[in-house]
C-alpha cells in the first residue's frame, strides 16, 4: 500500500507518509552535501583563480617569480617549499612512527602501552598555532644555537647544510610538521600492524627466529603496503599544515639548496598575503595557489585511502 521503504513488512502508521518522505530526503540531502561540498570547494577555488589562470596559463606552475608590485606571479617556490618541507617531515616521522607502532603492538606491556597511547592522542590534539608559538620561541632558538650549528659543522660539506643560519628555515618547518603528523602516522601504522595475522608471527617463531627477525619477515613485510599507505596519509596531512609552518619557515619565496634557508609553502603564502592582496590579480593568483594545494591534497589523500583500504579490507580507515 505504501511506497515508503521499511525494513519489516509492517504497514506504516497512518498519516506518516509525508513526514517519512520528508525526513528521508533531509537525510539524503545531508549525505549528498558531502559530495556537493567537494565539488563546491573545487568550483569556488577555480572561479577565484580564473583571472590568474587566464593571465599566466600553465606557466604559473613553473615560474619562480613572485612579485606583487610588478604583478608577476609564479607558484614554483611554493610548490618547492611544500614538497621539501613535507618530504623532510616524512623522513623524520615515518621511521619514528612505524618504530613506535611496532613498540606498541609487539613489545610494550599493557601498563606501558596505555599511557603512551594517551600521550600520542594528546599530541594530536595540540593545535597548529600552539605548535607555531612553541616553534618560534623555543624550537627555533634551540635549532639556531645548537642543532643547526652542529649540522653545519659535521655535515657542512653537503650543500644541504651550507649557507647562513637564521633559525627560521625549511628544516625547522620540516621538523615541526613531523611532530604534527607523528600521531596519525603512528596510529594508522598501529592498526595496520594489528591486522597482521598472528599465524604469520607464529610461523616465524616456530622456525627459531629471534624477535627482531619475526618482526622483519613476518610483520613488516606483510604490512608493507599498509605502512606505505600510512606514510602517504601522513604526507596528505603534511601538505595542508599552515599555521605552524608559517611561523617557522621564514616566508621568503625562494628556491635554495640549503635546508637552513627560509622558504615558503603553498598554504603559508595564502595565509600571510591573502588579506594584504591589493589587486584582483594578486588575490586571484593566491586562489590559484589554493587550487593547486587543494588538488594535490585531495589526490594524495584519496590515494592513501585506496592503499589503506586494500590492506585492511572493509571500509576506509577513519581519519580524524
Amino acid at each position, binding site marked *: 500500500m505504501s511506497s515508503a521503504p521499511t525494513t519489516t513488512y509492517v504497514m506504516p502508521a497512518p498519516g506518516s507518509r509525508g513526514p517519512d518522505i*520528508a525526513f528521508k530526503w533531509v537525510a539524503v540531502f*545531508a*549525505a549528498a552535501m558531502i559530495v556537493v561540498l567537494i565539488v563546491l570547494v573545487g568550483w569556488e577555488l577555480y572561479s577565484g583563480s580564473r583571472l590568474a589562470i587566464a593571465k599566466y596559463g600553465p606557466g604559473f606552475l613553473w615560474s619562480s617569480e613572485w612579485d606583487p608590485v610588478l604583478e608577476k606571479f609564479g607558484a614554483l617556490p611554493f610548490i618547492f617549499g611544500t614538497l621539501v618541507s613535507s618530504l623532510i617531515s616524512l623522513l623524520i616521522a615515518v621511521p*619514528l612512527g612505524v618504530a613506535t607502532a611496532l613498540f606498541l603492538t609487539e613489545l610494550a606491556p599493557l601498563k606501558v602501552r596505555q599511557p603512551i597511547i594517551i600521550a600520542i592522542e594528546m599530541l594530536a590534539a595540540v593545535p597548529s598555532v600552539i605548535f607555531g608559538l612553541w616553534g618560534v620561541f623555543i624550537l627555533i632558538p634551540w635549532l639556531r644555537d645548537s642543532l643547526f650549528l652542529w649540522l653545519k659543522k659535521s655535515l657542512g660539506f653537503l650543500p644541504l647544510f651550507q649557507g647562513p643560519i637564521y633559525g627560521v628555515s625549511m628544516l625547522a618547518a620540516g621538523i615541526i610538521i613531523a611532530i604534527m603528523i607523528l600521531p596519525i602516522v603512528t596510529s594508522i601504522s598501529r592498526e595496520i600492524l594489528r591486522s597482521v595475522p598472528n599465524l604469520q608471527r607464529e610461523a616465524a617463531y616456530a622456525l627459531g627466529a629471534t624477535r627482531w627477525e619475526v618482526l622483519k619477515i613476518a610483520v613488516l613485510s606483510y604490512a608493507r603496503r599498509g605502512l606505505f599507505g600510512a606514510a602517504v596519509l601522513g604526507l596528505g596531512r603534511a601538505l595542508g599544515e599552515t*599555521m605552524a609552518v608559517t611561523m617557522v619557515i621564514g616566508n621568503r619565496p625562494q628556491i635554495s639548496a640549503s635546508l637552513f634557508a627560509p622558504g615558503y609553502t603553498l598554504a603559508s603564502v595564502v595565509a600571510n598575503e*591573502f588579506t594584504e592582496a591589493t589587486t584582483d590579480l594578486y588575490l586571484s593568483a593566491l586562489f590559484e595557489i589554493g587550487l593547486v*594545494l587543494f588538488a594535490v591534497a585531495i589526490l594524495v589523500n584519496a590515494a592513501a*585511502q585506496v592503499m589503506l583500504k586494500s590492506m585492511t579490507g572493509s571500509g576506509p580507515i577513519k581519519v580524524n
Partner: protein
Amino acid sequence: MAMTESPYLPTPQFARWRKVKSSAVTGVLVVCAFAVIAPLFLVLYFLLSKGFSSLDWNFFTQLPKPTGEVGGGMANAIVGTMVLLAMATVFGVPFGIFGGIYLAEYGSDRANNWIRFAADVLNGVPSIVWGMVVYLILVVPFKGFSAYAGGVALGLMMVPLVMRTTEEVLILVPQSYREAALALGVARWKMIVVIVVRTALKGIATGVIVALARIAGETAPLLFTALGNTFWSHNLKEPISALPLQIFAYGLSPYDDWHRQAWAGALVLMALIIVLNVTVRILSRDRSQTD
C-alpha cells in the same frame, strides 16, 4: 637412517650476534617511542611555565590594549572562540547527524562507500582552503568579514567528522529495537528519532565534542572569515576575535608583552581542548560499561 648432527647449526657467535641484534632493535624501538611523546611534554611544560603567570583577572576580563601599550587581556578572544564554536555546532552538526542517519538507516552499500570515501577525502582538505571558499561565499557578497562566515567555515569542517562518528554509533543500535518500534505501528522517521537516535545519543554527543576539540584550535579558516577583532563584536555580522587568531597575531608581533599574552592565550586554549578531550573520555568510558 640415523639423524646426523646438522651441519647447519649456527656458530655460537652467530647465534649471539642474532640475539644482540634483536635486543638492539628492541632498544631502538623503545627510544623511538619516548622520542615521539617527548614533544608533548616539552610543549606543555613551556605553555605552563611561560603562560601561567600571566593568567590573572585582567587577562580574562579586559580587551587588548592598543598597539604597543602594555597590559590588557583576551576577554573578547575567549568569548569569541565560544561564540564561534557555538555557531559551528549550529551550522555543522545537523548536517553531520542527518548525513550519519542516511548512512546508517537508508543508504545502500554502494552509495555509502562513495559517501564515506568522499567524507574521508573532505577531511583531508587543508583548513585554509575552507577559509578561502567561505570568503567567496559569505564575505565577498556581504561585503564584510563576519562571525557568521567564521562559524560557517568551522561548521563545514565539522560535517565529515560528525557524520562518520554518528554513523558508527547508529550502526551499533541493535536491529531488534527498530523492528520492535515498527511493529508497534510507529512511523519510520519517528522510530529513527525517538528510538535509534535517543539510544545512541551519548555516542553522537561524544562525536560532536571530538569534532569541537578539533576545530577549537583552528586558525587558518578564520583568517579571512572572522578576521579577528580588538574590540567586542556587537553582532554576528561583524568580525569577531578568537583565541587562535589572537595567539597568532601576538606571537608574530615584535612586542614582548604581547608574546607573554600569547603564551597565556595558548595555555587557555590548550586547557579548553584538554577539557573537551577529557569529557569525551569520561563519556566513552560510561558507554563501554553500560553496553
